[in-house]
C-alpha cells in the first residue's frame, strides 16, 4: 500500500483542485458533467476494512466484492460476484463491486491472481479461489459472532448477512461483526468445503447484472470519455502499409491550427498530432503533409497471401501433426474419396469503442487509464515504455467498450500514448484512434485455408480423415516462444486429442491433422473464438459433405463417430431434441447441424434456413446447446450465446479485411458491415451443464454458428459453400 500512499501524495493536491472545479462547473452550467470531470487522477484506493482479499463488509452492511477480471460486456463482474456472495451468504441486494488495479495487485504479491481476461477464462479459472475467499470470510464472520456470544459455532446460522443464535434468540449482522472478524486468523483454505451447486441460491440463478443502470443514461464513463484537467488529446496515424516508414512530414503546415500543440513521431511508422481536443487533433492530422516509404510489403495482397497458403496445402516438410493410424493410405484404399478446400479471410475486431488510452507522466511516475482485457499486460507495457519500475506505474482499468481479444496482451496504444506523454510531462494525454485507424491496424483474426480429405467404404462409413490447415500463426506473431521447432499446435484448436479444452469430438479409424505455418506481414491475434471459428467450419462442413456423400442423416452420421465423446454427444443430442431434428419442415426450409468444442465447453447448433433464387438467406430458427459445466447466471450465459451468434453471422456473411497493396481496404462500417437488428434471428438456447467441470462461456458457441448455417445452406442449395464471406459469393442474410 506504500505505493498507493505515495501516488496519493503526488496527486493529492491536484485531485482537490479538480473536485472543486468539477462542482463549480456543474453548478454553473446546470448540467451533470461533474462526475466525469472529477475522474480520479490516481487509481482509486480500495475500500478499507477488508475481511479478506475478496470481501469488504462496511458498517452500513454494504458488501464490497473485489473483481480481478475485466468487464467488457460478458458479465464476468456479476458472475464472479455471485460466486463470492454465494459462499459468503451475504445479502445480494447490498453487494457492490470494486476492482483492484494491477499496481495494487503487484504491491500485494499478486494476491488477486491473474487479471487477464481472455480465452473465456474469467470464471472458469478463478471460480475456486474466489469461492474460497467468500467462504473464508463467512467463516470468520460467524466465528467472530460465536466468540462474542461465547457459543459453539455449530449453533449459529446465517441468512443474507444476518447471523442468528437460535437457542438464545440473539442476532447480529455482518456489518456489526466485521471489525472483529477481520482480526481473526483466516481458516486454512484447503480445508474449506464449498457448497454443491444444488445448494446455490445466488450463483446458478439469473441475478440482474450489477452494471446495467449507468449504461442507459449516458452516465457511464468509458475510457474514451475521460476528461482530466490540463488534458491534451492525440490522434494517431500509423503507416497504412504494415511495416512502412515515415519519410517526412511538415509540422509547420498545421502549427497555426486552433488548439494544435505539436506533432510527435511515436516511432518510425507512427505519427501523432496533439491538440487541446481530439477532433482538432484528428482534423489537423488529416491536413498534415506526410510522405511514406511503403516498405517491402507494398505489393502484398489477399491474393498473394492466399497463394502462399495454397502452396502450404501441398508443401512437403516437418509440420505439427496429430497422427492416428495411416489416414492417407486408408483414404487411398477406400471405395470413395472426398476432398475439399475451405478458406477464411482476415477479420477486424471492430469493437464499438475505438482503441484509446490516457497516460500521464509526472514526477517520475506514470499512470494509464485504459480499457484493457489484461491489466497486468497494461502495467507491464507502461513500465516498459516509460522505463519506470513497475512500482512507479499503475493502471486504472476502465470497463471496455468491447474487447473480443483485441485489448489483451498487445497494448500497442499504451506504447503510443507514453511516447506522446513523454513530450508533455504533467499533462494527461488521451490518445484515440479513428475508426479507420482501428480497422486498419488491428491484430486480425488470421486468414487460413484447409484441405480436408476423407474416405468412405461401401457401407458409407469413414475409413480415414485428413485435414491440413495452412495460414498465419497467432503465436508466431505474439508469443513466438510458444512455438517449438517451427511447430505450432494452437492453430489446430478444436482438433486436439487432449481432453478438457478444445478436443475433437470424433473418433476416426485413421486421422491425420497438420498445421503448416504460412505467415504474412499482417498482424494477427485472438478474435472471439480464435481458431475454433475457422476450424469449426472446416470440420463440421466437411463432415456434412461426408455424411451426404455417404447418403446418411447428418445427426446419425455424427453420432456414429462420437461413441468415445459422451459430452460432445450430449450437447449434440440436446440441440437435436430442442430443435426437433428429423421432424418435417415447411416447404423450402432446410436444416443444418454442427457441434464443436472450445474453451473447455461443448457447443452444438441447429439452423433452419431458406435460400431464395437471389441468394437471400433467411434464418427461420437457430438453436444452441451448451455444456459449460457449471452455469453461474443462465440469463447472462444466454446473452453471450445470442451475442456470439450475431458476431458469428457477421463473420460468415459479411466479414473480410482485405489486403490490397500491403494495407487493409475495409476501414469503416460502410465496407466492413456487421449484422443489424433486422438481420438477427431469434436465438434459442438450451443449457445442459454436467456439473463436473468448469467451462468458458463468452467464446465457445461462436464456432458452431457458421457451420450450422452453412450446412443448412448446403441442404437448401445442394452445394457446399467453402469460402467466406458469403456476400462475395452471392448470398445475403435477410
Amino acid at each position, binding site marked *: 500500500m506504500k505505493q498507493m500512499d505515495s501516488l496519493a501524495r503526488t496527486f493529492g493536491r491536484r485531485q482537490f483542485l479538480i473536485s472543486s472545479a468539477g462542482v463549480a462547473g456543474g453548478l454553473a452550467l446546470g448540467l451533470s458533467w461533474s462526475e466525469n470531470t472529477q475522474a480520479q487522477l490516481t487509481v482509486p484506493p480500495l475500500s478499507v476494512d477488508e475481511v479478506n482479499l475478496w470481501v469488504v463488509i462496511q458498517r452500513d452492511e454494504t458488501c464490497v466484492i473485489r473483481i480481478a477480471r475485466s468487464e467488457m460486456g460478458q458479465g464476468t463482474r456479476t458472475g464472479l460476484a455471485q460466486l463470492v456472495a454465494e459462499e459468503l451468504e451475504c445479502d445480494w441486494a447490498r453487494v457492490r463491486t470494486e476492482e483492484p488495479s494491477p499496481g495494487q495487485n503487484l504491491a500485494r504479491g499478486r494476491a488477486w491472481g491473474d487479471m487477464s481476461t481472455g480465452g473465456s477464462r474469467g470464471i472458469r479459472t478463478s471460480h475456486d479461489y474466489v469461492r474460497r475467499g467468500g467462504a473464508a470470510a463467512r467463516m470468520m464472520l460467524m466465528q467472530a459472532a460465536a466468540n462474542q456470544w461465547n457459543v459453539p459455532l455449530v449453533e449459529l446460522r446465517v441468512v443474507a448477512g444476518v447471523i442468528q443464535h437460535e437457542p438464545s434468540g440473539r442476532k447480529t449482522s455482518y456489518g456489526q461483526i466485521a471489525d472483529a472478524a477481520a482480526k481473526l486468523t483466516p481458516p486454512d483454505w484447503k480445508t474449506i468445503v464449498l457448497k454443491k451447486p444444488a445448494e446455490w441460491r445466488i450463483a446458478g440463478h439469473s441475478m440482474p447484472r450489477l452494471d446495467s443502470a449507468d449504461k*442507459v443514461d449516458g452516465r457511464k464513463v468509458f475510457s474514451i470519455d475521460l476528461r482530466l484537467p490540463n488534458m491534451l488529446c492525440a490522434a494517431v496515424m500509423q503507416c497504412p502499409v504494415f511495416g512502412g516508414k515515415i519519410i517526412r512530414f511538415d509540422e509547420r503546415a498545421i502549427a497555426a491550427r486552433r488548439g494544435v500543440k505539436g506533432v510527435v513521431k511515436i516511432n518510425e511508422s507512427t505519427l501523432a498530432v496533439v491538440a487541446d481536443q481530439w477532433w482538432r487533433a484528428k482534423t489537423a492530422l488529416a491536413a498534415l503533409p506526410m510522405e511514406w516509404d511503403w516498405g517491402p510489403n507494398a505489393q502484398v495482397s489477399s491474393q498473394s497471401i492466399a497463394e502462399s497458403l495454397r502452396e502450404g496445402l501441398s508443401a512437403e516438410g516437418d509440420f505439427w501433426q496429430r497422427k492416428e493410424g495411416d489416414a492417407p493410405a486408408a483414404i487411398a484404399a477406400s471405395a470413395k474419396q472426398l476432398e475439399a478446400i475451405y478458406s477464411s479471410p482476415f477479420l477486424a475486431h471492430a469493437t464499438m469503442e475505438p482503441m484509446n488510452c490516457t497516460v500521464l507522466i509526472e514526477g517520475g511516475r506514470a499512470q494509464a487509464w485504459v480499457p484493457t482485457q489484461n491489466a497486468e499486460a497494461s502495467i507491464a507495457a507502461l513500465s516498459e515504455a516509460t522505463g519506470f519500475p513497475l512500482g512507479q506505474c499503475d493502471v486504472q482499468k476502465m470497463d471496455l467498450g468491447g474487447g473480443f481479444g483485441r485489448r489483451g496482451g498487445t497494448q500497442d496504444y499504451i506504447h503510443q500514448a507514453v511516447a506522446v506523454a513523454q513530450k508533455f510531462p504533467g499533462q494527461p494525454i488521451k490518445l484515440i484512434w479513428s475508426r479507420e485507424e482501428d480497422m486498419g491496424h488491428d491484430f486480425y483474426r488470421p486468414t487460413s485455408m484447409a484441405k480436408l480429405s476423407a474416405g468412405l467404404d461401401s457401407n458409407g462409413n469413414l475409413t480415414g480423415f485428413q485435414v491440413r490447415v495452412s495460414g498465419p500463426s497467432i503465436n508466431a506473431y505474439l508469443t513466438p516462444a510458444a512455438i517449438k521447432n517451427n511447430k505450432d499446435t494452437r492453430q489446430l484448436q478444436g482438433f486436439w486429442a487432449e481432453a478438457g479444452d478444445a478436443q475433437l469430438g470424433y473418433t476416426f479409424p485413421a486421422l491425420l491433422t497438420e498445421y503448416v505455418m504460412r505467415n504474412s506481414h499482417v498482424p494477427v491475434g485472438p478474435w472471439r473464438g480464435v481458431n475454433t471459428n475457422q476450424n469449426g467450419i472446416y470440420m463440421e462442413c466437411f463432415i456434412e459433405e461426408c455424411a451426404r456423400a455417404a447418403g446418411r442423416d447428418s445427426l446419425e452420421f455424427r453420432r456414429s463417430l462420437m461413441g468415445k465423446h459422451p459430452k460432445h454427444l450430449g450437447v449434440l443430442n440436446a440441440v437435436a431434441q430442442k430443435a426437433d431434428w428429423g421432424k418435417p419442415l415447411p416447404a423450402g426450409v432446410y436444416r443444418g447441424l454442427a457441434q464443436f468444442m472450445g474453451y473447455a465447453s461443448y457447443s452444438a447448433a441447429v439452423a433452419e434456413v431458406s435460400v431464395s433464387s437471389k441468394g437471400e438467406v433467411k434464418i427461420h430458427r437457430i438453436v444452441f446447446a451448451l455444456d459449460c459445466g457449471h452455469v453461474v447466471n443462465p440469463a447472462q450465459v444466454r446473452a453471450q450465446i445470442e451475442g456470439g451468434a450475431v458476431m458469428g453471422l457477421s463473420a460468415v456473411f459479411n466479414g473480410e479485411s482485405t489486403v490490397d497493396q500491403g494495407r487493409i481496404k475495409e476501414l469503416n462500417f460502410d465496407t466492413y458491415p456487421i449484422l443489424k437488428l433486422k438481420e438477427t434471428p431469434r436465438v434459442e438456447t438450451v443449457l445442459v451443464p454436467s456439473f463436473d467441470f468448469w467451462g468458458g462461456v463468452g467464446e465457445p458457441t461462436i464456432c458452431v454458428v457458421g457451420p450450422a448455417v452453412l450446412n443448412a445452406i448446403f441442404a437448401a442449395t445442394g452445394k457446399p459453400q467453402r469460402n467466406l464471406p458469403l456476400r462475395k459469393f452471392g448470398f445475403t442474410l435477410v
Partner: protein
Amino acid sequence: MEQSLKLTINGVVRAIHVEPEMPLLWALREQLGLTGTKFGCGIAQCGACTVYLDGRPARSCSIPVSAVGKAKITTIEGLSKDGSHPVQKAWVALDVPQCGYCQSGQVMVAAALLKRSPRPSDAEIDEAMNNLCRCGTYQRIRDAVHVAAGQKTVQQVQATYAERPVGVSRA
C-alpha cells in the same frame, strides 16, 4: 473562422465559440462535456452518436455544429432526469446492455420509435433500430422495445432468458 453559436441542449441554452465545421458530436463531447453521446465511426454508419434535433433522431458525428441552427438538441443525458424513461427502465430490467458503448444511441432511437409508434410491430422495430451493436444485443433490444411499449411484461420476457438449465441432474 470560428463562430459563436448558441445551442439549446436538453432545455438549456449553451454558448460555444468553435469552428463551424466541427461535428455536433464533438461539440457535445469536448466543448460541453456531454460524453454520453458516443463516437463510433464518424461517418453516420453506426448510430452510437444519435441525438435528437427537434425530437427526431440524428447522427451527430456527421452534422456540422453550425448547421444545427435553432433546432432543439436532446442528448441521452436529457432523455429523462433519472433514467426513468420507459425505454431505459425496460433496458435495465432485461439487462439489454453488454459492453454498453452503443446503448446510448440504441436507447435514443428506441425512445423516438415509441413516440412515433407507441405499439410497434417487429417490422417497425427492424426498420427503426438501425444502430450497430458489436456485442450483438439485438434480440434483447427487440424484447425491451416491446416491454417499453407495454406489449410484453418484463416477467414474460425474463422467463425465456432465466429458464433454469435442463437435462442433467445436479451434483
